[in-house]
């Protein structure tokens, strides 16, 4: 935990780990788990597809979830489907969950191999949605795409996380290949790679335009990068794609290279595991591996009442069970000791102004929180800029009254979107 500095005149500086804390030679391989679980990110499974418990699946096989919108998962093991259920995640969002009992031998799915055998073409594009790093390529690949620039993130969004830094550091060749393929399959004018200063040398070899960012939080959040690097401020409610930019992680680029080079679906996810003492491990695990298996392999013990976080300390999602699997976009798993958990309080805002000083979006957080506490979501959005929030969490981090401000903000945004949906459906 980074505490308040002794001199408090300026904003807190939240630095990324410096290079030598990244231990390169030690990537911990997680053995194949007995069972993997795959989660879709938004859709429930519909009944129009033929998928049932007991089905045999192969590694790299498409598991269709819904015929209508063509959503699918890709199996990362060879084995038998043991459970199909529903998972309720963040803000009550439901998604499909498929568990597969894994066999030790991988058999590769033919359809996939056939698709990629052909020269790097749009054939295999349909396999790319579930790549590690979860690239949102579909918007770029569609013909009427308005995306003019692709930004490769060579620095991780959250603190203590070094997954993508490590990829840039050690995987220049496949990054270079990946950039080449990206140029081939998309028709974007610019490909930019963003790295911290110590990785400039590697980044320059990739053939993408290099931009260096200071490794300070929240410089690494996409909204801030858009502003600092592209000079574009994204208006509330617009997506990056609508502004002509698509973000893709360095890991996804190397995964792309792997698809086309070795005709193999990348089934491994690289991630940073952050232990209770903030020490980190670099890990390689199959997508779908339960968090529990990873912690066991690394000898990290957890007890009832600790906190498990998918993601880093500022933006991660806390999970309540260690059965949760590694997802294509899980860049970090953080374990927090029971004693380190800061209880938030229900004290009023004391108007100390700390949040105003740190907010990168210049939001009057002290007023905003007053409205949100009273469920005045629409006023909050209109007068106090609720929707400009880039969700960095710095306000909660510095709040003297320890108000869970970001939580209120997310709730506010959620409620507003519900309201909007209601209005639209009644029109």
């Amino acid at each position: 935990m980074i505490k308040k500095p002794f001199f408090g005149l300026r904003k807190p500086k939240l630095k990324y780990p410096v290079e030598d804390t990244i231990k390169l030679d030690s990537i911990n391989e997680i053995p194949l788990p007995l069972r993997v679980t795959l989660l879709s990110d938004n859709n429930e499974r519909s009944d129009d597809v033929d998928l049932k418990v007991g089905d045999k699946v192969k590694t790299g096989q498409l598991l269709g979830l819904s015929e209508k919108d063509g959503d699918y998962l890709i199996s990362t093991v060879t084995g038998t489907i043991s459970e199909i259920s529903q998972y309720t995640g963040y803000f009550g969002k439901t998604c499909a969950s498929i568990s597969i009992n894994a066999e030790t031998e991988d058999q590769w799915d033919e359809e996939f191999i056939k698709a990629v055998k052909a020269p790097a073409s749009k054939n295999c594009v349909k396999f790319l949605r579930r790549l590690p790093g979860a690239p949102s390529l579909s918007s770029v690949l569609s013909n009427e795409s308005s995306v003019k620039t692709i930004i490769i993130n060579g620095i991780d969004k959250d603190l203590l996380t070094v997954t993508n830094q490590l990829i840039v550091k050690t995987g220049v060749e496949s990054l270079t290949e990946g950039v080449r393929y990206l140029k081939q399959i998309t028709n974007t004018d610019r490909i930019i790679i963003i790295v911290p200063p110590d990785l400039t040398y590697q980044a320059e070899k990739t053939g993408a335009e290099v931009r260096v960012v200071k490794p300070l939080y929240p410089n690494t959040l996409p909204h801030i990068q858009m502003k600092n690097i592209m000079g574009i401020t994204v208006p509330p409610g617009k997506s990056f794609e609508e502004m002509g930019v698509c973000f893709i992680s360095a890991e996804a680029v190397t995964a792309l290279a792997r698809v086309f080079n070795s005709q193999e679906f990348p089934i491994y996810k690289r991630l940073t595991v952050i232990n209770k003492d903030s020490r980190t491990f670099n890990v390689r695990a199959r997508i779908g591996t339960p968090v529990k298996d990873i912690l066991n392999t690394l000898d990290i013990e957890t007890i009832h009442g600790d906190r498990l976080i998918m993601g880093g300390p500022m933006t991660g999602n806390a999970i309540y069970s260690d059965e949760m699997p590694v997802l294509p976009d899980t860049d970090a798993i953080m374990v927090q000791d029971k004693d380190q958990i800061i209880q938030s309080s229900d004290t009023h805002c004391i108007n100390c102004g700390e949040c105003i000083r740190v907010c990168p979006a210049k939001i009057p957080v002290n007023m905003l929180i007053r409205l949100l506490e009273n469920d005045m979501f629409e006023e909050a959005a209109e007068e106090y800029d609720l929707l400009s929030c880039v969700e960095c969490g710095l306000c909660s981090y510095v709040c003297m009254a320890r108000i869970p401000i970001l939580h209120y903000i997310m709730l506010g945004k959620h409620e507003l979107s519900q309201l909007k949906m209601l209005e639209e459906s009644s029109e």
Partner: protein
Amino acid sequence: MNNQKLFISSHAPYWHNMSSISAKSCHIMLAALPAVIMGIYQYGIPALGVVTFSVSCAMFWELIMNLVTKRPVSIGDGNAAVIGLLFAMLLPATTPWWIVLIGTFLAIIIGKEIYGGIGCNPLNPTLVALAMIMLSWKSYIDFDGALVNYDLAFLMKYPLEALKHFGTSAISEHTAVGLLMGRQSGGIGATFGLGLIIGGLYLILRGYIRWEISLSFLVGVFVTAFLFNISDPVTYAGPVFHLLTGYTLIGAFFLATEDSSSPVNFIPMLLYGAGAGCFTILIRNIGAFADGTVFAILLFNVANPLLDKIKPKAMGKGLEHA
């Protein structure tokens, strides 16, 4: 997923910089200590009595209010103690106990709790109490009357009162260094200029108060006093005298900076500080009171919500129609 081991779930972020309201209160009290100790050294046991009684009463009233309104006990955050301490610092050492009792009641209950407690008070609670006492029982906090039995090794006439009635000739004995070192009569913790400045700088450097407010307040006092002074040097004292007497310094570092009643945005902070500083001198020089700090700050407390409307444009706001 039926596992016995459950993990604590909550929303991001999972880190906190470990600041807290009680830490802030402790630091404010610590910063006030040099000035308070000087006051106790000068005025002896009665001053000590007023300070301790005021702090205890303030906490007592807060506790009572917590119990009456059935809200969580909040004296742990130290805010009541801070209010009690600051209130005592403004009083003469001989203030009778019942004034302290009533004053802290006014500060805690009328100044803060009826609005909903910490963070909800529109005015500085300490000053609300002091203003009411000044209007109701003026003679008890009239420094010349209250401190008449003291004969310390300096001019015992309250400098601002002397100035008001006799012009600059009455204050010619005061030197800037003497005033800085507390060689003047006044509130228990309001006369030791050096101590207040050190305390204030400490709070600013540690980030517990907003420097914009303190600085602009002092600048406001200085510039206004300077203008008066050059227009008529016989009636109006110079800016340095005004900076170092009365409640100017304690006002700049401890009163105007009270969180809830002061702005948080940059330009509003400057306007608020400069305005309060300027009005302090206006009241001193042409108003009815010898010291204008109390009413000047209260006046700008009232203006605060309006001032704080001047805020920077949020990121991406207004771009939709661009």
